[in-house]
């Protein structure tokens, strides 16, 4: 059952260029149908999942490719399958302007399957395998426009992720050698008698693996690829660089910390402090860079960098509460960020304005898009009553609960970055709605809102943001159960 | 320094010859001199081998008048190996010489570095 959930998008993707579609809408219906079918299957699977592990292939020794549905995978798979149909709908509208669509949708749908692969992976090796596959599948997407910057950006992205994967590989080896099994078991698999006196080496390896996976989760020294990947078309940057790719990096780190190395092994060690410092630095770095950036999508990319480090900050606190905070932010941030990216995409699609200072006075011309953009920026800022506040609340709660003085500094970083987010998001909103007295809206006269295909996903996301903000209790309880291993 | 250096003077000479051949092969720029160095090296090894087999006061291993006791003759194996080795060095020298001819005809020089420089100019 799990394997067909992963295979359907792969098949659908491959079939797109092959099947002869006379009209464009046939192709759309086919693709949208396939993606929706797959999401329904995933949700069906999540609702009444069986504990069995599905073995696909057997490598050497105890290494095998197998899938299982557990708490964490439910969250990530649910999130991805929830967002993907909407993103595909959006992509149809967006791609009317771009050329050679088939390759785009080919890789776009395959990425869906590969991300589900990562979500359902039952052991570190399968996750590593799909993790590498994700890099390879997303490179053509980044390279889609085939301009010179796109190629350079995709090359940089490829080098960074492959480099990261190489160092994560060492972590994988450690688990294979020093762990009892490579499967994911909450609380870690390392068995003490094998480790003996080599804890320091293992900690060093953990930090290296963290940095390895961190490359994809845009941890500070290795995140210059993310803003440059803004060159790709919006559905790519929105879905991949806000939801699929970077989140899989964060997901991998959570798996590594909680399900492989185990928190009681890492708790309170120098590894935790170094990693926490790196994460906190990234939080502040991301926001401050976003402040200076005038290109809209790059600004949102920098804000993704800092928000991702929120998730890592939650993960690095290494308590069940911390994990809950991390998962909450993982889910909520995905929704918030994808809506802001889609708004930016809609702006670009309608007026192909790329820079902040060109957005003067557009608020009234595109009320829906900018309204939703305002709501998502308020959510990102963490105004109570919207989703962002709840996730920040859980993260800070976990940090306070962990009694670790460094975590208190972490909270300060969270708030500083919230302030900086407020500044760079609201400056766009202010520029759009309050253009100033002597502003003539001659050039943007014929600007209007995009059609329903773009607006529907945006509205759904906004509803989700508000719903999560106001009535987040059941979701957070579910996440807490996931973190404490009930599922 | 072991005891037998002056006793095995033959092998010492072989070793020195070997090094001379080795240096020539490595450092000489002229191809012909390299091949000469090669031959010196090979013959040094065969000298070394021959020295191995030699036992003072014994005859060559050809059965003369029916005497087949081991003490009468020297050890035949090294000479067998030498015989095979010589053919190897002959064939290798032939090959190297033909290569040198082809290079000389083409580039009119025997200096390997100059050949490399001309090749780079050719660029093919």
């Amino acid at each position, binding site marked *: 059952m799990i394997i067909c959930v992963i295979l359907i998008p792969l098949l659908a993707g491959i079939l797109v260029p092959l099947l002869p579609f006379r009209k464009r809408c046939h192709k759309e219906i086919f693709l949208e149908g396939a993606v929706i079918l797959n999401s329904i299957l995933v949700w069906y699977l999540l609702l009444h999942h069986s504990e069995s592990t599905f073995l696909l*292939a*057997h*490598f*050497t020794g105890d*290494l095998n490719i197998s899938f299982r549905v557990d708490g964490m995978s439910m969250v990530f798979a649910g999130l991805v399958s929830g967002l993907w149909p909407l993103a595909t709908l959006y992509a149809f509208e967006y791609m009317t302007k771009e050329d050679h669509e088939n390759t785009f949708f080919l890789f776009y749908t395959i990425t869906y399957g590969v991300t589900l692969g990562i979500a359902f992976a039952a052991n570190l090796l399968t996750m590593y*395998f799909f993790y*590498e*596959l994700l890099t*390879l599948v997303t*490179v*053509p997407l980044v*390279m889609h426009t085939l301009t010179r910057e796109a*190629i350079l950006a*995709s*090359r940089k992205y*490829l*080098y960074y992720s*492959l*480099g990261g994967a*190489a*160092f994560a*590989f*060492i972590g994988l*080896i450690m688990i*294979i*050698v020093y762990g009892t099994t490579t499967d994911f078991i909450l609380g870690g698999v390392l068995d003490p008698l094998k480790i003996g006196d080599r804890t320091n*080496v293992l900690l060093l*390896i953990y930090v*290296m693996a963290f940095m390895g996976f961190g490359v994809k989760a845009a941890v500070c020294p290795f995140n210059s690829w993310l803003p440059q990947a803004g060159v790709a078309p919006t559905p790519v940057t929105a879905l991949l660089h806000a939801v699929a790719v970077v989140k899989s990096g964060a997901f991998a780190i959570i798996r590594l910390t909680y399900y492989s190395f185990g928190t009681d092994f890492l708790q309170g060690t120098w590894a935790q402090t170094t990693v926490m410092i790196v994460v906190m630095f990234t939080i502040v770095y991301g926001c401050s860079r976003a402040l200076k950036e005038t290109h809209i999508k790059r600004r949102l990319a920098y804000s993704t960098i800092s928000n991702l480090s929120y998730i890592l900050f939650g993960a690095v606190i290494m308590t069940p509460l911390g994990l809950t905070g991390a998962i909450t932010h993982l889910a909520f941030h995905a929704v918030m960020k994808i809506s802001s990216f889609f708004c930016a995409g809609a702006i670009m699609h309608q007026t192909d304005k790329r820079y902040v200072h060109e957005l003067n006075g557009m608020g009234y011309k595109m009320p829906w898009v900018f309204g939703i953009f305002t709501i998502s920026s308020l959510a990102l800022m963490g105004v109570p009553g919207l989703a962002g506040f709840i996730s920040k609340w859980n993260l800070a709660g976990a940090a306070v609960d962990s009694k670790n003085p460094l975590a208190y500094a972490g909270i300060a970083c969270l708030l500083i970055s919230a302030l900086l987010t407020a500044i760079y998001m609201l400056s766009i909103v202010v520029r759009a709605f309050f253009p100033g007295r002597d502003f003539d809206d001659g050039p943007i006269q014929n600007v209007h809102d995009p059609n329903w295909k773009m607006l529907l996903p945006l509205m759904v996301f906004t509803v989700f943001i508000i719903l999560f903000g106001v009535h987040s209790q059941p979701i957070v309880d579910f996440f807490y159960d996931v973190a404490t291993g009930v599922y | 320094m072991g005891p037998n250096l002056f006793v095995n003077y033959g092998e010492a000479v072989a070793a020195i010859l*070997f090094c001379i051949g*080795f240096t020539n*092969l*490595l450092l000489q720029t002229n*191809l012909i001199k*390299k091949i000469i160095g090669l031959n010196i*090296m090979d013959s040094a*090894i065969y000298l*070394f081998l021959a020295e*191995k087999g030699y036992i003072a006061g014994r005859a060559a291993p050809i059965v003369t008048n029916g005497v087949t006791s081991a003490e009468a003759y020297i050890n035949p*194996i*090294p000479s067998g*190996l030498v015989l*095979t080795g010589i053919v*190897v060095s002959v*064939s*290798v020298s032939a090959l*190297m010489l033909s*290569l*040198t001819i*082809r*290079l000389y005809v*083409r*580039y009119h020089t025997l200096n*390997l570095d100059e*050949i*490399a420089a*001309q*090749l780079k100019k*050719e660029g*093919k």
Partner: protein
Amino acid sequence: MDFICNFPFFSILLSLFSGTICSILPGKAAKIVNRVVIITVGILSGILLVYLLDSGESFVYWMGHFPAPWGNEIRAGVLEAGMALFFCIIMYLSMAGGAHKLFDEVEESKHNLYYILINLLLSSLLALVYTNDMFTAYVFVEINTISACGLIMIRQVGRTIEAAVRYMIMSLLGSGLLLFGLCIMYDLTGHLLMSNIKESVSLLIQNGEYQIPLIVSIALMCVGLCIKSALFPFHAWLPDAYGYSTVSSAAILSSLVSKGYIFLLIKIIYRVIGFDIFNSTRIIDVLFVFGLMGMIFGSLSAIKEGDIRRMIAFSSVAQIGYIYMGFGMGTQAGMVASVFHILSHAATKSLLFIAAIGLTEVSGGSRKFIDLTGAGYRNKWAGVAFTAGSLSMVGVPLFSGFISKLLFAQAAVQVEGKMLAALIVLGISTVLNAIYFMKTVIRIYTAAGDTPYPCITFKDMKVHAVVLILFVILNVLLGVSSQPIVNMIEQGLAMFA
């Protein structure tokens, strides 16, 4: 002593004899003979492998009427038969892959000479794999060197001859040192047969006499073989030799020839000196350090390289560095990893060479990097094959590169002192590999403008495409079902001593 035991002897004699036969046949007939011989040898060693796997222990085969220390002897174990089978597969595929290019590279009349060289190369490889006698090994090493040199310079272009000269000089140095070490070993132990040498060496070690000459002879033999198999400091000849020779010869040279010498080194380590004695000498650390340096500098010079085939040649210097790093670890797991890497590197490297030729053919024959843009679209099969090959080199799961990297890392973890160095260098060299291979993959898949070059479809180079697909399947097979192969290697190594 049932009939199957004769198979190793049959395969060696068959390939030797086919060499002589080809001298009188015209080019086409020689080609057929060559293909038939390779297939039969492959089948023979396959059956032998099956027989040995269930019999479980290696057997000795007298070459002549007299038992071992007096007459020559062949010893066939699981590992030898496996390697022989693998060599035949790779050789057949490389020959088939490069066949269509042969006509414009080698003169019409000299085709049969070309096939003679290939046959004799095969026979020397088989002999190297099977022989149990040091001096026979030396003789067949010579045959291997001369035929390899022949393969390099058969294209008779200025560059290939100069590369052949450099190759000959370096390998003659190597074989000179090897022979000298051999003689010293003979002088100390009095035997030329590997198993007997082993007993006398262990005897010598116990009562502690002749220590220095013993170590010097081992060192000389190792250095000799390292020079011949192009380990890092002695790799100057490799890029020219592989870069400019014909297609199939480049594939065969890079994957089989240097591996033959490494296999001989493994036999020396296991059968002549004994694994633990070899570990006690400091030579291991030297090999380890040279291996590490090879991995780094090989990839670095590959990044700088402008010509695609020289780049692949430099990458094989790096891969040989991997193998010697495996030796240098001095553990059983390290050795298993190296042997597996020999197989995986052979498969991947020949795939890359043949795919590279497919790409250069399609971009007007020029090997410069810039002309290759968009070659992936023009020659789809070569593009896909090259991508698969580079993914395997980079170590993406599902390919054989990943498994060998996995085995190396697992082996490195057990070794106490060298673990961190090995792991970090492994990581760095993967990144370096990624850089220059992915640079090429991206280069061939960026859409070039309106280039005059033709675009080849499947029809007009059927054989070449089929060969590429077979290579990719072999690679994936090694990558996915690697467990039986690893068991076979372990069993073979156990049987080896």
